[in-house]
């Protein structure tokens, strides 16, 4: 079981009484605006949740793990997520069955 956009839409409908069309549009735009900001080179800071940061990686040597063949991994830009204090505190105490 995983939380998906459909459930977020359902949640907005149940909790706030948004109609399904509004809720769907909002959930869609929420993620799209974060993508757009990152695509424009701007980090996203959601207080209480976490930060989406950008990093430029230089080219580095890599290997095909199956064949052992050396292939360079080209320079790339990646997104990293740093959870905020509040989110970290909320999940730290989860007592699960080891790894998910």
């Amino acid at each position: 079981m995983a939380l998906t956009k459909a459930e977020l839409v359902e949640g907005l409908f149940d909790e706030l009484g948004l109609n399904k069309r509004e809720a769907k549009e909002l959930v869609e735009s929420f993620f799209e605006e974060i993508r757009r900001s990152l695509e424009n080179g701007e980090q996203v800071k959601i207080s209480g949740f976490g930060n989406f940061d950008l990093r430029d990686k230089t080219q580095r040597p890599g290997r095909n793990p199956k064949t052992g063949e050396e292939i360079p991994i080209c320079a790339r830009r990646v997104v990293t997520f740093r959870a905020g204090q509040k989110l970290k505190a909320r999940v730290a105490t989860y007592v699960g069955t080891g790894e998910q």
Partner: protein
Amino acid sequence: MTKSELIETLAQGQQTQLAYKDVELAVKSILEQMTQALANGERIEIRGFGSFSLHYRPPRVGRNPKTGEPVELPAKHVPHFKPGKELRERVDSSKETVRIQSGT
């Protein structure tokens, strides 16, 4: 971009005819649903954006940096984000044209 700027942008969006206050509540609800899912040990999967899951950290003995005294730290879970294909590709293809802005 901060949370309030995100709310601002969403409220100004042409498609959504919601008041700022409603958008603010909706954004808070989305973030709370996401936090609650992770707190329950549930994954989050948003196609084209990415997935959030928990990673297990085993118990360890740390040290009080001031006194050097050993401290037992219990096992815990930490949030982990894996960017989805669309996000990865859009961000990577922007590297030639836009600089990463430092600070906001």
